[in-house]
């Protein structure tokens, strides 16, 4: 285990990189703004350097366009990372991720449905409301799918993990088929919108969307780490957790509700962003061990970092256009993950 890093080192490194990535993201883009100016603008916003003047246009770009987008990326990344870690803990399976309880598939189906009927039904309401309707619908879809999975998984009034896994697969397949049906019936423009939505984008970020997402993300990112002791005990088995004085049914319920709130809200705002919920907790465990008291907060941090970097790349690689962020997270993360996997795989086989 000599390869494992010290946990404080991981926290400090991730936090520093997160700040660095955030500042870079604020400066870099279709309109390049010097880092110094970015820093002064930020400090002005919190009350320092009142007398220094900055270019109003670049200050506007930083404060109104890029900063909300960066914050949004951090919130979404942190939500996905921490929810993935907690879901893997209650499923006692490293292959689990938030999508397994139907969040993403439910959201996709409802989003596709709304995109498909929007052009005919909601044109009159206007595009802005259309966007909110899309977010609201996706959130409702996420909640509905998870609720169905949860209901099916109840055995004697308590959620049963094996049943939940199967129910999740079934609901995922059903929602996937219905989404496919809508895509089949959709016209070219709708199909394009559906595809882009499913690849994810932070393009819709504004202070309003950040404010909407914040409570959902905050309650989950702050709440799930409080469960790290019972989630550790879950690794021994639900019975053992019970014998150690925890309530497995309650823990499972809380994790599912919190994960659905945060991931559902995140997906509703940004579309499907894969990879983070699955691989970020993995990378964190490979770096510093399996103790959830470290894995949960560190997954939130690394999730935020990964998404911030991915969004930065998504924006600057094909300037002035933008890549879908889901593509970037997978392209960026998979080689990194494979590298760690190949380096450490002997440890897992042994």
């Amino acid at each position, binding site marked *: 285990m000599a390869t494992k890093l010290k946990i404080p080192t991981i926290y400090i490194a991730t936090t520093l990189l997160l700040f660095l990535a955030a500042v870079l993201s604020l400066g870099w883009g279709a309109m390049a703004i010097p880092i110094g100016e970015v820093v002064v603008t930020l400090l002005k916003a919190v009350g320092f350097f009142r007398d220094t003047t900055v270019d109003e246009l670049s200050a506007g770009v930083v404060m109104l366009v890029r900063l909300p987008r960066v914050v949004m990326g951090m919130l979404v990344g942190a939500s996905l990372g921490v929810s993935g870690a907690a879901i*893997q803990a209650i499923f006692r399976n490293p292959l689990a991720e938030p999508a397994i309880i139907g969040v993403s598939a439910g959201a996709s189906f409802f989003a596709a449905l709304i995109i498909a009927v929007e052009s005919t039904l909601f044109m009159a309401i206007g595009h802005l409301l259309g966007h909110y309707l899309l977010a609201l619908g996706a959130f409702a879809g996420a909640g509905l799918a998870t609720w169905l999975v949860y209901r099916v998984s109840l055995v004697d009034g308590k959620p049963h993990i094996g049943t939940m896994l199967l129910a999740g697969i079934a609901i995922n397949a059903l929602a996937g088929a219905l989404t496919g049906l809508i895509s089949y019936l959709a016209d070219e423009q709708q199909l394009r919108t559906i595809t882009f939505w499913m690849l994810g984008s932070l393009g819709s970020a504004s202070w309003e969307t950040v404010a909407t997402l914040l409570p959902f993300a905050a309650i989950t990112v702050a709440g799930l780490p409080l469960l790290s002791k019972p989630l550790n005990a879950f*690794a021994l*088995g639900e019975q053992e957790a019970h014998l*150690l004085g*925890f309530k497995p049914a309650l823990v499972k319920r809380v994790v599912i509700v919190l994960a659905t709130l945060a991931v559902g809200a995140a997906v509703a705002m940004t579309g499907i962003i894969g990879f983070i919920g699955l691989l970020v907790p993995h990378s964190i*465990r490979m770096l510093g061990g*399996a*103790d959830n008291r470290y894995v949960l907060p560190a997954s939130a941090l690394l999730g935020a970092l990964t998404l911030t970097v991915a969004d930065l790349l998504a924006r600057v690689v094909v300037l002035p256009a933008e890549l879908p962020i889901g593509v970037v997270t997978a392209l960026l993360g998979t080689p990194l993950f494979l590298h760690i996997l190949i380096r450490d795989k002997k440890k897992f086989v042994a």
Partner: protein
Amino acid sequence: MIRVENLTCSLHGKTLLRGVSFSIASGELVALLGANGAGKSTLIKHLSGEKKPTSGSIRLAEKPLEHYSLATLARCRATMGQQHQVAADFTVAEVVMMGRYPHFAGKPKAADHLVVEETLAVCGITLFADRPVQSLSGGEQQRVHLARVLAQVWDQPRGVLLMDEPVSAMDMQYQHQTLAILRALADCGYTVVTVLHDINLAAHYAHRLILMKNGRKLHDGTPAEVLNERNIYSVFSMDAHVLMNPRSLKTNVLPLGKRLDAHEFNSFAAISTDHLAVIRSTS
């Protein structure tokens, strides 16, 4: 101490325990013996509160078990189950520290670290402390879980230990080491109940044996009282020789072994093998 009165358990139309009654005082090490499916594990699960009795009562220190909160119970009673599979890449020290979870909120205190250190040492796994549990052998993993269970009540001299086949994967040295630890804890005032399959191990260390069959308690008493040819045959359907070891003054059971003739053992397979041999030799 534990008092069990007329404990009955039925599940899916099958009766697993039928009117079991006994009481175990603090300071006693009691071994549960019996054939597979006799209800030993079911009894342990009732004593630990994992299962609720269909009828009958269980009292812990004169208070009905169902009046205890989960958290209180977790601080004074530790249970070792049969199956152990640690899901993630936890180290030995982390798993043993999980045994202390009922005792601290937030970060472990100095006392918790001390308990972990001591239980690791007594189970002989100090050297493995930083290794992932999954990389250890079956017997070593069992010692990790033993350490975890001991850590849970290590500083509770009136504690209760419920062990379901705690030594099933261990080598001879650690089978004896484990039973010696349990005996020492019982002598300190703990109440210890353990399911065992090795009659001689049980006879050597336990104050009392409870022999079970088909969900009933058949015999209950000191090893010298309970272990005789008749009782052993009634519980295990095995002929055995029982004698007093003149050196240890402990009761020793020597099974006389089984012998199965081929036609008794599996006549169809035996006959068809014979036929095949005949066919091969003639062709």
